[in-house]
């Protein structure tokens, strides 16, 4: 379950150590360039700059309960503009992982659900398939969105851009071996 805020921040910093330039997060000068460059900051509870402030204040759990990380479109505008060379997009990814690891559900969990579905798909077959991804995702989020996107699926199909049988590669076995090796290591 969720640990108190300060260990969460420590854990995040440790996570970032695996990433080239991840340690630069300590050098944030709170200039706000990231927030100003972010196309979705307006919809986030914590802007990118505020995420780092919250981390420093040991308030990460609040950030994880908000939708913030799941509103990140992964566009890397913040990353290329940050004067301190901080890989902020990777920080958003790290937040997503941290939330999942500690069982913290954001107030809008659709992003989490879509990602979980995607991961299952790839784990299973080695490929992702738009149709199955959507179908499973809608089963998890309710029929409303499915109806909304029926037109989308029809349009894709009509233009011969939908594969009805998901691809499954022989390499799926290799992926399973990779997955097992990692699970063993993590105990």
């Amino acid at each position, binding site marked *: 379950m969720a640990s108190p805020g300060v260990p969460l921040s420590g854990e995040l910093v440790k*996570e970032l150590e695996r*990433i080239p330039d991840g340690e630069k997060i300590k050098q944030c000068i709170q200039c706000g360039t990231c927030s100003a460059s972010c196309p979705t900051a307006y919809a986030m509870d914590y802007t990118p700059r505020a995420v780092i402030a919250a981390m420093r204040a040991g308030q990460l759990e609040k950030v994880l309960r908000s939708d913030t990380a799941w509103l990140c479109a992964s566009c890397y505008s913040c990353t290329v503009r940050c004067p301190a060379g901080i890989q902020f997009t990777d920080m958003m990814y790290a937040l997503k992982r941290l939330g999942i690891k500690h069982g913290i559900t954001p107030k809008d969990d659709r992003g989490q659900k879509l990602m979980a579905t995607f991961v299952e798909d790839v784990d299973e077959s080695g490929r992702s398939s738009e149709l199955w991804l959507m179908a499973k995702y809608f089963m998890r989020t309710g029929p409303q969105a499915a109806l909304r996107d029926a037109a989308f699926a029809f349009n894709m199909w009509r233009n011969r851009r939908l594969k009805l049988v998901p691809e499954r*590669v022989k390499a799926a076995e290799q992926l399973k071996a990779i997955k097992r090796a990692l699970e063993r290591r993590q105990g």
Partner: protein
Amino acid sequence: MNYLFYPGCALEASSPHYYKSCRLSCEKVGIQLDELEDWTCCGATAYVGTDEVKATAYSARNLALAERAGATDLVTACNACYITLRKSDKFFTNETMRHDASEALQAAGLAYDGTVRVRHIAEVLLNDVGPARIKESITTPLDGLKVACYHGCLLTRPFTDIGDPEQPDIMDRVLAPTGAEMVDFPATAKCCGGMLMTTRREVGLALVYEILSCARAMKADVVAVACPLCSVNLEAYQDAIGQVYDWDRPMPIVLFTQLLALAQGASAEDVGLDQCMIRPEFLMERFA
């Protein structure tokens, strides 16, 4: 010249017209694309959000296969595959990550030494082939056509070595020899919203509307893209955009390789113009 090619799930499944036109336009300039055997999903922008070591290992599996095949370059046509594979390659420079991911790869009998250069087909056409040779391949110029080249975010971010992160002109320079006019397009590297189009529709629609209305304001006839994911986001939701914003004249979205191949003498059918969700009727007539 032969290049090892990584199609990726989206190109293979939802954008056969992109794959087809890629091959066609490359052939015309003497490039053959050999598909990497037994490739797996790169993990896109989603996988790394659950487990970064696994994400790196999965995606580096493709790099390991390319390395084993003796390739120096692995070429992709999808912005998301491009950046995901390139990031995995970069992550191998971090010692802890390399150690952990290598251990996992080993379980599948593979190893990655970090010798593969991940490249995007647009950049290969610009830098390895070059405008002069592209020009020589043009037989039916696209005179009079106004094109807005949409690069999207990931082609030049976070890796800025192949073009400007805010105003890249890679596609513009590849397509200029076709005789079409490349309009100024300030929104060229604005984000299309990626997965937000599915998880947070209203946010995604706002982003795409901004891009499309910029193209319209610049008087473009079509928007050319270099990514199967950008392509779907820009074309599939224009009806939905019309329900929220002032948008009643849909904008056709084409792959940049479709335009290139048309100018190299291919027909509308050859390049799969009929697979565009918003059909560029004027091009279909012209190149029937």
